[in-house]
């Protein structure tokens, strides 16, 4: 009898726990869902960025309370709950490249329904272009990032900084060996490899979502790039390349601005220079530009439009972007910020602005999701498995076409 009672109690407590857990979660979310004065913003940013945002958003209280919630799997979580007002956030801060996916899913509100055209015109054209999908603007930009050419002044003097890719190649030949590399990049990682493809004037995905891999320009770019790969480490991943640079084993690299605090902490005298010009095309290496900004969910607008407008208005203040630049080296998205001395004197931000002039906004079409994998495989086939370039391009094109077809 005793055993029966214990097992009954255990069964009840198990079911009750399961029930309470799900109810508990739901009630916490639904409390904010029904409160027009509480705005939940999901993000995946570091503390330096959120501290600036929190401080500014605090000024809205008690009228509007903003809760910033960090989500490491933000993109997947949004796919799961984007349509559910009880679980989804009201807004989120993320790069522009997922806009196409969420716009097609129908969960995003065009930002032009919440801010005026005059307000939007304050932002750099390239950032607004990045936030536009099928003619509608879905993001209010905050800042943008591009990859930068960085060098360690201990090894590469300012006068040695290569202005062209051939100068870079000569430097690599002279300085690679004995555990040192003249230059190291994530050569077979798609985000970094596109720096070379863009520099040859090709876009791997057309505006209408068609893959462009088996083209003359991509072939030229990857053939030319390969000789640089041969003088670099066999690994292409973030940790290896960044450690080589931060440990002083690689004299120069192409990396994001997020790398700078790490190397400065290690005492490196790091220099930042314009991207080398490709001798073959006379265009500089062109990285992708990622625009970080605020997106608003459709469901939230139905019940919280007034509060959302207030949040956007506060975040539109150029001081926010200037503070972000000072705190985390983010390049402001508003033109007016570049008239301020604080920004003009920031070498990293100004170099990013210069690089952004030649940068290509990262495509925001949903098809880009499959292109990352296909391009990654293509780069690996050519650079690490030494497969024939023509054959690899042909296979990659066929694979991309088939995967894009499978998306629909």
């Amino acid at each position: 009898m005793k055993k029966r009672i214990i097992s009954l109690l255990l069964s009840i407590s198990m079911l009750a726990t399961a029930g309470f857990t799900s109810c508990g979660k739901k009630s916490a979310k639904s409390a904010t869902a029904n409160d027009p004065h509480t705005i939940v913003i999901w993000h995946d940013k570091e503390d330096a960025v959120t501290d600036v945002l929190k401080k500014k958003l605090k000024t809205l209280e008690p009228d509007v309370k903003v809760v910033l919630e960090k989500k490491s799997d933000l993109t997947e979580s949004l796919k799961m709950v984007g349509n559910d007002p009880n679980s989804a956030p009201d807004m989120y801060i993320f790069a522009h490249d997922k806009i196409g996916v969420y716009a097609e899913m129908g969960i995003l509100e065009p930002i032009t329904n919440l801010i005026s055209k005059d307000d939007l015109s304050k932002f750099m054209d390239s950032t607004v272009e990045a936030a536009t999908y099928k003619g509608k603007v879905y993001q209010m930009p905050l800042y943008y990032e591009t990859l930068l050419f960085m060098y360690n002044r201990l090894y590469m003097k300012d006068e040695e900084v290569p202005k062209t890719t051939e100068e870079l190649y000569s430097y690599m030949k002279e300085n690679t060996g004995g555990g040192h590399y003249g230059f190291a990049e994530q050569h077979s990682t798609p985000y970094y490899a596109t720096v070379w493809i863009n520099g040859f004037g090709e876009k791997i995905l057309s505006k209408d979502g068609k893959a462009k891999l088996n083209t003359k320009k991509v072939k030229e770019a990857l053939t030319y790039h390969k000789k640089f790969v041969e003088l670099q480490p066999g690994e292409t991943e973030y940790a290896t390349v960044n450690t080589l640079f931060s440990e002083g084993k690689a004299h120069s690299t192409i990396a994001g601005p997020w790398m700078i605090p790490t190397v400065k902490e290690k005492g490196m005298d790091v220099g930042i220079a314009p991207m080398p010009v490709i001798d073959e095309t006379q265009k500089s290496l062109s990285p992708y530009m990622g625009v970080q900004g605020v997106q608003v969910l459709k469901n939230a607008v139905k019940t919280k439009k007034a509060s959302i407008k207030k949040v956007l208005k506060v975040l539109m203040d150029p001081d926010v972007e200037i503070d972000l630049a000072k705190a985390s080296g983010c390049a402001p998205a508003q033109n007016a910020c570049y008239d301020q001395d604080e920004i003009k004197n920031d070498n990293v931000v100004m170099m990013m602005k210069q690089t952004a002039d030649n940068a290509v906004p990262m495509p925001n079409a949903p098809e880009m999701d499959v292109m990352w994998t296909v391009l990654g495989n293509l780069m690996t086939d050519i650079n690490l498995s030494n497969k024939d370039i023509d054959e690899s391009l042909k296979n990659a094109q066929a694979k991309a076409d088939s995967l894009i077809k499978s998306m629909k």
Partner: protein
Amino acid sequence: MKDRKYNTLKCYLWSLPSLVLILLIVIFPIIYTGYISLTNMNVYHWTNYSFIGLENYKDAILVFDSGFIKAFVMTVIWTVTSMILQLVIAYVLASLLNVRGLKARNIYKTFLIFPWAMPGYVSILLWKTGMFNSQFGLLNQWMNKLGLTAAKWLNSDWSAFWCCTIVNLWLALPFMITIIDGALQSIDHSFYESAILDGANWFERTVYITIPMIKPIIGPSVVITIFTTFKQFDVIYLLTQQVGAKTGANIHTIMTYAYENAFITNNYGYSSAISILIFVILILFTVVINRRQKERSV
């Protein structure tokens, strides 16, 4: 008769909470995946998806191309190799743990079980950067000390396969050692004493006493491990295929192949159809193994 019916009903009633949980956690996702596989649910039809019959299955069959067949063969080789190595190594280590008079047995057991305590994701990435990395990995540090040329362990299919197998062994051995250790302890020592009196050597005792007696105990664990190894994704993906960290090796199991050819498309109908087909393959595999086991026991 009435009592029997009452007892049966009572058994089901007592099991009801567990059955409900199993239904929610195991059965419902399978049924729901089956339902999604019959719709056109994808990024372009997220909420307005509709029933499209077996269209996704027609497309999914195309994934089962020559690449899939190659991945399937690779999966079988991977499973067989891993299982043989796991059973042999686990048996040897468990036998050593059961040597009479062994001191500090529990300390050895704790060390051997350690890989189980670490999250698999962390273990795999530690092996990747800490051991196999061509610049900083321990293996190449040793090679350098010995005056040998540094190797790119994960770049070629052959060496990447063995690296993946080693990591899989590291992750899976604690479970198998624990099971075999328990099975060995359950054998009555009088069997061995009689065999020794009859003049049986170590090999004969192993073949005629130990293995037949532990077989029924470790059987279910072996079947579970076969399936875990067969549908292994993490080890191969994280060591060789992760986007942004590909190594040049082109080894695929059916899971990594399906991921690269379907799941990245955000087409949930199509991906669900492929999941259901892989599920059917695994079910067929189970039926074959069960039938073989029954035949052997007869």
